[in-house]
């Protein structure tokens, strides 16, 4: 399904309204961001952040699908998100300048976009050889788990808890892993 730029903008506008944000008050910048989002949606099937390299693998890119996982903490800290599509009221009204926002996405996740085609890596290693520290970290991260928000009970199944609870806005620290064993029939 293809979206027009207008649809992409309307979706972003609706999302901004829901969360109390604004879309950046610069027509040229906004148009550029919308075009980038639309290209990514046509290319990958989901609107991943136009300012980040996507892998094309949904499971790797989930955290950078707009609105990305990092938007809420970035708007809270800097007044705008990484690509600067969403801004707070002060920036929208021109009371504050649009700042640059450092990348909050962990480097291990960014690096995945470069390695998507070769992941999972073929088992060239001997069976008993432990993986290198870097690899181990990546393996751990790739396993989705169940997390619940201790404040509102929201449950999510993903690699790591969200930065901010999408329901009650509790911080990441309020999430706890639900440890459970799932038995599959063989």
């Amino acid at each position: 399904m293809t979206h027009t730029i207008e649809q992409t903008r309307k979706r972003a506008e609706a999302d901004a309204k829901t969360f109390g944000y604004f879309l950046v008050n610069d027509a040229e910048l906004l148009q550029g961001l919308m075009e980038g989002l639309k290209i990514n949606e046509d290319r990958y099937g989901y609107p991943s952040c136009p300012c980040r390299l996507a892998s094309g693998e949904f499971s790797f890119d989930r955290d950078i699908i707009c609105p990305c996982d990092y938007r809420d903490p970035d708007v809270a800290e800097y007044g705008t998100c990484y690509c600067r599509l969403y801004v707070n009221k002060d920036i929208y009204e021109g009371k504050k300048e649009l700042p640059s926002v450092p990348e909050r996405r962990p480097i291990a996740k960014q690096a995945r976009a470069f390695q998507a085609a070769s992941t999972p890596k073929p088992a060239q290693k001997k069976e008993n050889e432990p993986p290198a520290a870097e690899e181990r970290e990546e393996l751990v991260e790739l396993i989705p788990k169940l997390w619940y928000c201790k404040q509102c009970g929201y449950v999510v199944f993903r690699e790591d808890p969200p930065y901010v609870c999408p329901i009650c806005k509790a911080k990441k620290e309020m999430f706890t892993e639900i440890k459970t064993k799932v038995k599959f029939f063989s």
Partner: protein
Amino acid sequence: MNISKVTGKYNNHKVFLYTLSTCVWCKMTKQYLKDNSVEFEYVDVDLCTEEDKEKIRRTIQDKGGSLSYPTTIVDDKKVITGFRKDLLKEALEL
């Protein structure tokens, strides 16, 4: 790797950009350099093959850059992350 070259009068620095074809800040950086007649080369990383992407990742990280776009490398050593007019001005003596 599909490296594009933009010619300009101002060519006393080697300027190389790693960009994304979808990124509006990358486009602004290119436009800023064009407006200042700076000669530069760039590659749109999202349009590269997987093999080239991996090479690019290593190159950027070896030079101490982060994997953010645009990444501008001046004279093979100075790395500027993002569209930073102030840093570009300083590095290119504009």
